[in-house]
């Protein structure tokens, strides 16, 4: 049950032709309950957060901050000792060196897949790094006419097959003819 007869008040306000010149903000009465209960909730919350600082913290803080500001601005000053000219020269030399290295180093890359250990290839695949889609695989296939494909029947001996089935199939109802 609503403690405030908001709907009745609203009706009365609408019915009155003249509020004696007074007006309320839009939706004032509609929102009244919400705002009131919100205020009540808010009031029930603790006023203090419960956090505290070490004794004398704020007293020593000013000098601590000024010290750390000084320390960082000093670092900036040191860097600016390098003149632009020497930096430009250093950059140019470094660029040349990189260029020379990259041109002479193309032979060293491993193109021979046999030189990579199988175990490292295996772990590469296991970690999910191998991204092959069906198009990649399809491009590796040679084209062959369907008629010329023969299927070998003698891959697995019947004895081996039987042993395997007996060992791994629990539901013996499948095996019984």
């Amino acid at each position: 049950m609503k403690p405030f007869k908001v709907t009745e008040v609203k009706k009365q306000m609408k019915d009155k032709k003249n509020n004696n010149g007074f007006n309320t903000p839009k939706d004032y009465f509609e929102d009244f309950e919400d705002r009131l209960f919100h205020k009540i909730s808010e009031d029930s919350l603790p006023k203090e957060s419960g956090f505290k600082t070490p004794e004398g913290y704020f007293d020593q803080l000013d000098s601590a901050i000024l010290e750390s500001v000084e320390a960082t601005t000093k670092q900036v000053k040191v860097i600016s000792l390098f003149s632009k000219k020497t930096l430009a020269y250093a950059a140019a030399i470094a660029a040349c060196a990189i260029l020379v290295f990259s041109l002479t180093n193309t032979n060293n890359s491993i193109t021979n897949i046999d030189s990579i250990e199988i175990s490292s290839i295996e772990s590469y695949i296991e970690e999910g790094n191998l991204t092959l889609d069906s198009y990649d695989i399809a491009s590796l296939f040679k084209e062959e006419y369907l008629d010329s494909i023969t299927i070998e029947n003698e891959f697995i001996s019947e004895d081996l097959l039987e042993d395997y089935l007996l060992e791994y199939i629990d539901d013996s109802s499948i095996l019984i003819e």
Partner: protein
Amino acid sequence: MVEEKELVLALQTVSQKEKAFRELVSQYKERLYWHIRKIVLNHDDTDDVLQNTFIKIFKNVHHFKGDSKLFTWMYRIATNEAITFINKKAKQKNITIEGVKELLISKLESDVYFEGDAIQLQLQKAIATLPQKQQLVFNMKYFENHTYENLSEILNTSVGGLKSNYHLAVKKITAFLKSNETF
């Protein structure tokens, strides 16, 4: 306002910068401290973030154009530094930001510099369950008593948006406290 203009001018004048900066630190260190503390929760981290904040203020005050109040600008830097700190911690520990907050809350009870009673601890726990924006808005409106207009500038959100954030926050907090009543 005239005072602030003078202060800004001094801060941007090389010969007066240090003196003006000392004045700034003295005036605003506490407010910025508590603002940061509510976000990162423990004292030592707050101390770090606060120092970084003031360093940033010192380094960048010559960029300050006066299109907002100086204090608003400083508060924004403090907020960003604190949030960056939380994000960094999340990355280091490989957990979410909410996870970091939960971790910090769990340490709160045994924290030497938290002397809150049971309900104050519950309130902190409740706040930590809110989305980050609502946490900020709630802390700043409820504990720091900013006006919505100030908040609007600092957080770059409309007053209407802030009001609804705040109301939602209070609702959720109240519900949390009710459902976790142990007293």
